[in-house]
């Protein structure tokens, strides 16, 4: 295996590109091994500053580097100027640590963070000189494995991948590596490798599944599982946090120490994929969180620690954690943050506890404007909750906040869209009221409206997306609204959300579409200034795919879904029941605050809820 560093040829390109610090590696706590038997490249399919904060990559990086004889190197997609320079010089995509061609590694692991990363996967493989199609790869090519949120509907991406790791990767990664190393030492044919990989629980090998007459993907051999269930890390609470995080030179999007304080959220929002796929809720203890934060700050030099999770204020010991961190970090100019606030008095009280003098901004996500629609999506907050939280925050000294909403949700009517404007106005008035008269001019509220994307493995997986023209009409309702100065209303590009919906709920037939769109020039689709619908429309014509039909299709409840052979552990019957509950505007409670609501995860995966403080609420 060649391990030549490309650095001498890369460095002369740096004077001609933006932000050369993206490419230099050697950050504090980065790990290097000149010689090791087995090399893994971990690719995040976007730029350094977007991908470096990714926690999945950080966890795998540490675990693999700790394995005997293995090393992990990071790979990010260079920005367009650097891609052009590399292609011009005939240089391939390279790993950061060793500055080696990505094609020289043994295993290439690719994170699939969201649907719009699809074209970047094509770009990355092509730049690496690795055949795009898994079926075309030979003995000299790395094993290419995908994981992350989009692996819950892997089919649109399946042409690129030899296998997918479904669910939490902490234990899975070493099992995959062990199988691969064993196979490498024996010189068996590639088919044998695929079979051995497919025997690992949580690994899906697309080449070993083919559609039956109903379109259901079925194993081609009797000894393969009909359905692949996600892996879940049973002892998350005791599993160590990242010991020595890499400290970037370049400014990353979330440039701070991240401590994952809990995993999972069972509030049960019906549009939310993470809420279904990370169940059950498991918390780390206050002791281990405080110790990890103090030790992580010491060995990184960061001036901010974020307590991350899907809903950090829900941690049963959150108040204790924040008070202890405040005491321990006093006088060091370190700030403690939580990504978003629970929409109630307690949420604001917790934010107040760590904000100190610095009250930069708060983020609330009511998601829908009317109570009717909030009941449909199971967002269990009321208008009073929001208005009280806002009043409390602005009384406490905050002067700006962000509100997140969605449009195009199942069951949405025009009055629900108009209710977004109403609610924003009421929240703004509540903020005004709470602030001394002389300071009212400082009150700012930003209202972001995203377009609903139906996601696999959620109660809304059967629902279609609205036609683009209809979404645009509803955006028009928002646009027409008269808002006071101080409210800034913005919305996501509906065109990009069409592509997200297609890739979120389509099947295997979409592989060629992604490749054609990339050939037509699509890449960095998650960057609004880089995104263009044109390459996708042209690709759809070339491949004979009807994008609108794919995004808008309503699946019958008993339909075979393109992801039916993949399970996050939640029973299909539970998702169906939740979809019917939505239609009748019935809400479902959060099992981590009360009793089991029967989603099936704990039973199916032999896992259980773990609350560090014994109980919540």
């Amino acid at each position, binding site marked *: 295996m060649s391990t030549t560093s490309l650095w001498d040829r890369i460095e002369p390109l740096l004077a001609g590109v933006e932000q050369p610090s993206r490419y230099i590696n050697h950050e*504090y706590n980065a790990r290097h091994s000149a010689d090791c038997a087995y090399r893994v490249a971990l690719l995040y399919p976007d730029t350094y500053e977007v991908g470096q904060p990714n926690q999945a990559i950080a966890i795998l990086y540490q675990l693999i580097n700790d394995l005997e004889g293995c090393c992990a190197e990071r790979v990010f997609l260079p920005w367009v100027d650097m891609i052009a320079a590399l292609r011009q010089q005939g240089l391939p995509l390279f790993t950061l640590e060793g500055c080696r061609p990505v094609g020289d590694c043994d295993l290439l692991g690719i994170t699939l963070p969201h649907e719009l990363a699809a074209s970047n996967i094509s770009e990355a493989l092509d730049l690496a000189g690795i055949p795009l199609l898994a079926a075309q790869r030979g003995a000299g090519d790395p094993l290419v494995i995908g994981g992350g949120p989009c692996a819950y509907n892997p089919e649109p991406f399946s042409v690129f991948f030899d296998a997918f790791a479904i669910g939490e990767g902490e234990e899975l990664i070493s099992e995959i590596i062990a199988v691969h190393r064993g196979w490498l030492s024996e010189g068996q044919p590639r088919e044998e490798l695929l079979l051995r990989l497919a025997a690992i629980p949580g690994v899906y090998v697309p080449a070993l599944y083919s559609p039956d007459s109903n379109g259901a993907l079925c194993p081609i051999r009797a000894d393969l599982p009909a359905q692949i269930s996600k892996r879940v890390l049973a002892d998350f609470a005791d599993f160590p946090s990242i010991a020595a995080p890499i400290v970037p030179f370049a400014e990353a999007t979330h440039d701070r120490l991240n401590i994952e304080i809990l995993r999972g959220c069972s509030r049960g929002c019906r549009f939310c994929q993470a809420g279904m796929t990370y169940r059950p809720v498991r918390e780390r203890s206050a002791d281990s969180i405080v110790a990890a934060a103090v030790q992580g700050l010491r060995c990184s030099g*960061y*001036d901010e620690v974020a307590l991350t999770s899907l809903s950090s204020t829900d941690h049963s010991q959150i108040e204790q954690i924040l008070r202890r961190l405040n005491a321990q970090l006093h006088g060091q100019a370190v700030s403690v943050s939580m990504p978003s606030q629970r929409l109630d008095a307690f949420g604001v009280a917790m934010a107040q506890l760590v904000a100190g003098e610095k009250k930069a901004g708060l983020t609330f996500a009511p998601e829908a404007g009317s109570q009717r629609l909030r009941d449909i999506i199971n967002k269990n907050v009321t208008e009073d909750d929001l208005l009280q939280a806002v009043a409390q925050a602005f009384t406490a000294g905050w002067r700006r906040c962000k509100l997140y909403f969605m449009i195009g949700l199942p069951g949405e009517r025009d009055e629900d869209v108009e209710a977004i404007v109403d609610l924003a106005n009421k929240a703004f008035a509540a903020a005004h009221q709470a602030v001394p008269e002389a300071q009212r001019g400082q009150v700012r509220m930003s209202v972001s409206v995203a377009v609903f994307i139906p996601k696999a493995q959620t109660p809304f997986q059967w629902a279609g997306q609205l036609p683009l023209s209809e979404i645009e009409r509803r955006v028009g309702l928002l646009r027409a609204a008269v808002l006071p100065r101080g409210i800034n209303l913005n919305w996501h590009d509906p065109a990009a959300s069409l592509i997200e919906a297609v890739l979120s709920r389509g099947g295997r037939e979409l592989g060629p579409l992604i490749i054609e769109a990339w050939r037509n020039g699509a890449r960095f689709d998650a960057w609004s200034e880089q995104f263009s619908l044109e390459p996708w429309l042209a690709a759809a014509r070339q491949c004979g795919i009807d994008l609108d039909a794919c995004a808008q299709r309503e699946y019958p409840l008993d339909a075979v879904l393109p992801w039916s052979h993949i399970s996050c552990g939640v029973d299909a019957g539970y998702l169906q029941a939740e979809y019917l509950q939505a239609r009748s505007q019935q809400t479902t409670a959060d099992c981590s605050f009360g009793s089991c609501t029967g989603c099936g995860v704990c039973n199916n995966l032999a896992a259980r809820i773990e609350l560090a403080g014994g109980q919540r609420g």
Partner: protein
Amino acid sequence: MAESLFRLRVCYRRGDRARWLSHLETSRANERMVRRAALPFAITQGFSAHMRLAFGPALAVGTAGEQERFDVLLREYVDVDSALAALKANAPSGFEPYHCEYVDLHVKGLQATHIHEQYLIELQPAAEGSGGVASAADAGGVEAAAGSGPHAACESASGEAPGNQRQASIQAALEQLLQVGTLTVQRKGRQKVYDLKQAVQWAEALDDDTIMLVLVSGEQGSIRPELLLREALADRLEVAVRKVTRIRLSDQPWEPQ
């Protein structure tokens, strides 16, 4: 505030790959080094507390620095050897703290005092047979920055230099620019006019592939050496810069030997 503070000045080198950092990235890397070293740093009071740290004049992206400095205010006295040892042990790759000293709290900041900058600019060696005029397009064959000292290139190149015709042409071009007296720079829509008599103390082609510039920064800030060079050589000579190093940064004027 009754507490007494100590102003620790840290001298460090920025080289190897770290020369590709921006000023902001360099500042952040230094601050994080101080935190990891667990020095008893002072913080600002009030709204958004942060470490009390001050930096010298910015070092451009791509430029190495041999005598960079920053000041950090400490709440407690730490002897300079322990401070230096702690910083060294926690320095990121490409950063090398080599000296610490205490400076009077009332002395003006580094930006205001350390205005004398001496640069060494290494050019790509002239392409063979081109009579001393190198092609800028020839970017191949570049040596790794690591390990090559500021003079490595000129020593190896001077052996087979085709006379010193290139050296003489560069020298003539530099002098001609200085005669003009001003340099106008457009950056991000704004225009800056530098008085070269004030801003450039010395400009000399040391040999075919090495240029020394001594600059003095003023109200306008300092000129980027590459810019000055581009302006001087624009239509006359094609040269490609291989490496720029700020070899001296001082509050004292440079004196020709």
